[in-house]
């Protein structure tokens, strides 16, 4: 079954051969994947997804309110990459969950963070994980961070304008050393030393920018990540829960800690309450 899927053989190829399937039943061609098989979603007959989703996000009409609440951050320093995220999922002003894991462990050398629409992030990053695994099986070596982020960014470009919402950071360690890329739903792909996403990002940037040095020790870097998320969750109503922190090292990532933000904020702001 798996080999059949991977090689792209199946009922779909017959349809294409005989030209029986009308074009609008299948998704437009996407070149994000190295495999032959196309990504296909069920689409109602005669409906153009982009037009439909545009009408959903217009003010005044029916509006699908995608949740954007979160704070995630990642920064490179001498000893690798620190990734820290909060764990609140909000739908409107209701808190749907206080312990969502917003970091997807793609493989022992690659991590992806999620912010924006929860469904979009989870789906596309899991798809990215699948593509990374396929790459490794075909090429007998791990995918580079640059290529992985390019795959995700091309997936996003393929669905541009259709209302996806995803702001993600792909972090890893490959032959070129530590890697950190920011990818978002417009297809933006940026390499950098420090990123923060989500609606609490401005608070996190403030703390990170004040405390960041390239030559931080490992403990100092952990503390910086912790502080930045804690202060962002304190100020932002849509971030909270626990801090999940990962450290990307040369021999893979380790999960550093999972700490409740309310306890941390009491420690940092002693005397304020």
């Amino acid at each position, binding site marked *: 079954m798996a080999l059949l899927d991977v090689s792209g053989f199946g009922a779909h190829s017959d349809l294409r051969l005989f030209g029986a399937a009308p074009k609008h039943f299948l998704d437009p061609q996407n070149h994000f994947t190295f495999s032959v098989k196309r990504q296909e979603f069920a689409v109602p007959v005669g409906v153009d997804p982009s037009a439909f989703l545009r009408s959903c996000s217009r003010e005044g009409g029916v509006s699908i309110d995608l949740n954007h609440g979160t704070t995630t951050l990642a920064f490179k320093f001498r000893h690798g990459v620190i990734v820290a995220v909060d764990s609140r999922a909000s739908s409107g002003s*209701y*808190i749907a969950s*206080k312990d969502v894991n917003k970091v997807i462990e793609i493989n022992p050398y690659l991590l992806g963070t999620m912010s924006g629409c929860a469904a979009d992030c989870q789906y596309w990053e899991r798809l990215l994980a699948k593509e990374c695994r396929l790459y490794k099986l075909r090429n007998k070596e791990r995918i580079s961070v640059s290529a992985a982020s390019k795959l995700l960014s091309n997936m996003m470009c393929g669905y541009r304008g259709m209302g996806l919402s995803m702001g993600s950071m792909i972090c890893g360690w490959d032959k070129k050393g530590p890697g950190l890329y920011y990818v978002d739903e417009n297809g933006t792909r940026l390499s950098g030393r420090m990123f923060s996403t989500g*609606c609490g990002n401005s608070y996190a940037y403030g703390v990170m920018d004040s405390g960041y040095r390239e030559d931080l020790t490992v403990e100092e870097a952990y503390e910086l990540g912790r502080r930045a998320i804690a202060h962002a969750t*304190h*100020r*932002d*109503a849509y971030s*909270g829960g626990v801090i999940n922190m990962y450290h990307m090292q040369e021999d893979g990532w380790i999960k550093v800690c999972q700490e409740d933000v309310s306890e941390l904020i009491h420690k940092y702001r002693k005397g304020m309450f």
Partner: protein
Amino acid sequence: MSIMSYNGGAVMAMRGKDCVAIASDRRFGVQAQMVTTDFQKIFPMGDRLYIGLAGLATDVQTVSQRLKFRLNLYELKEGRQIKPKTFMSMVSNLLYERRFGPYYIEPVIAGLDPKTFEPFICSLDLIGCPMVTEDFVVSGTCAEQMYGMCESLWEPDMERQAFEMTCPVSRIIEFDRMSTTVDSKWDSKGIISKDGRCGNNTASSKSMI
């Protein structure tokens, strides 16, 4: 975004045996951003009478100050403390004066009659419709969650000790479910009984579920 959830906030009051309790959160924020965690939303209007105001923060302050002004005049003219039921009418009148450009608040009143110490709680809508209940009243952005908690925890004629737990517990739990009140301090003015107010409890909420 709705005007009532611009600043966010929640207030509730519960009635027990010969006592009442009133509690609120203390967050002052602007949409998603929290500004302070010590914003007062419950105001004393007599020895054993409190009003809690949920809604737009500017109106919370303005209404409490204007109400205090009217109450002071009343007490000077009458020479005695106001009864809770009369105070409710005073609030209702003040709010209806602004029928076509209302104050964006939903008040909750809790108190004991100054002479008979009969417990009294009520809430009003933003244009002054009074609603007196026998059990509990809630208002604010997490009203639905509060209704759920109060409904399950409240019993008639609760003695003071049992009462002391119920009000705070229901507060913490429902606060944690609403992003505009969560992680704020909650402030209970304590149990108001005929011996006077007992204790001002202030603590921070943590996730309990």
